[in-house]
């Protein structure tokens, strides 16, 4: 008896799902594309939303910024559920280890007094900012048209709540395992003069009817606050005996780099859209013109408080540099119209 083993290729009837075949033909496609392209319902809605007679449940008109084809934009990170969760779980594990180290060595408790004050008056209250930014991202997750856009917003919303949690954990560790400092930070957020411009900004971004405008507005603050507080200040921290600050801010800084990847690509896609590009650029310039001065004011107040505690930090100067860079970036995006 003899068996002959032969190699036989069985051609699959189809290489991928219909939603991908419709666009790219029948060829193997990534999970990201399969889980993203044309997934959102487009037609046969039974009802219009009761609270908005003029728009459909899913409607491109929830924002002035439009894409001819929302699926021409794809997340450069190619996040769908699994890679997103894996990626962030790893990041959070690392953060937890870092916190354990900080707590074990009581590094946060040993921070110089000025740095402690900076943390409670300027950094910890930012968890409320993160919370507000989460709401804005959730708005995008609900109202953005096209799965490729809205899933980025969804993940950004989860990220924001994660950032708020990181700050909370730092606050708890700094308050020797109690929530006392978080209470203090909340009072600061509600009452301190230096945080009111930011609080007002956040609340106004939350109630902006145009979801994309809110998203871009929050990004304007992000582009100032993140590089200044979590990058430049972190370098000062390293040289002035506050290494603990640097250890936890690196995660926020890393997150911000990641956030930039999808958001920059989206802004670029809006600005370069073949049909709506010109209008989009105009809208973007208008958004920047409206919100940027407020964002700048909010960030300056924060920077002043930091400089007051740490005269050598030069945070206000760092802010000016960051502002110049951000404005240049916007001028490029909007073709000098901003």
């Amino acid at each position: 008896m003899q068996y002959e083993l032969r190699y036989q290729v069985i051609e699959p009837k189809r290489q991928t799902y219909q939603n991908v075949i419709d666009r790219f033909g029948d060829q193997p496609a990534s999970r990201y594309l399969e889980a993203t392209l044309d997934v959102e319902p487009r037609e046969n809605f039974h009802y219009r939303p009761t609270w908005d007679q003029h728009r459909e449940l899913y409607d491109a008109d929830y924002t002035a910024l439009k894409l001819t084809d929302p699926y021409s934009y794809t997340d450069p990170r190619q996040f769908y559920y699994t890679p997103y969760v894996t990626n962030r779980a790893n990041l959070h594990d690392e953060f937890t280890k870092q916190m354990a180290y900080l707590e074990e060595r009581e590094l946060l408790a040993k921070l110089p007094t000025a740095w402690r004050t900076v943390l409670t008056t300027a950094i910890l209250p930012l968890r409320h900012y993160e919370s507000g930014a989460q709401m804005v991202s959730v708005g995008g997750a609900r109202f953005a048209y096209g799965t490729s856009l809205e899933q980025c917003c969804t993940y950004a919303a989860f990220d924001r709540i994660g950032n708020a949690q990181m700050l909370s954990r730092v606050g708890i560790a700094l308050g020797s395992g109690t929530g006392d400092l978080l209470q203090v930070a909340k009072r600061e957020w509600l009452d301190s003069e230096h945080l009111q411009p930011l609080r007002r900004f956040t609340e106004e971004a939350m109630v902006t009817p145009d979801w994309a405008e809110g998203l871009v507005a929050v990004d304007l603050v992000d582009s100032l606050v993140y590089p200044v507080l979590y990058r430049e200040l972190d370098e000062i921290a390293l040289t002035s005996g506050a290494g603990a600050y640097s250890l936890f801010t690196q995660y926020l800084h890393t997150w911000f780099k990641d956030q930039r990847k999808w958001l920059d690509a989206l802004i670029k896609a809006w600005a370069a859209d073949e049909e709506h590009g010109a209008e989009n650029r105009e809208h973007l310039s208008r958004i920047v013109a409206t919100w940027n001065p407020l964002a700048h004011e909010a960030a300056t107040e924060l920077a002043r408080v930091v400089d007051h505690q740490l005269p050598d930090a030069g945070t206000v100067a760092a802010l000016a540099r960051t502002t110049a860079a951000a404005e240049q970036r916007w001028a490029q995006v909007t073709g000098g119209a901003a």
Partner: protein
Amino acid sequence: MSDTLRQVGIDIQESEENRGLVAAIRADNPELTVRHLPGLVKIQAAGQIVINRETVERELGREWETGEFQLAIVSFAGNLSEWDDDQIIVKWEH
């Protein structure tokens, strides 16, 4: 000596991660034939196959080191005539 270019080939393991790599190779080498076998993607081209780090990074949406190429390939036919931080070129050198 004949003028016809010999085929070079790379066999890449078929996986989610490697799909981006294949897409990048496709983008950079217009004269490519790609055959999908069970668990394997056979790539062939006349003369040479170029893999650029930048293209791969764009397809994968993350940073990629050319060293990671080793994790993706099953075998190849040709010589690795260039392998630096930015580019890998597979071709016959003699």
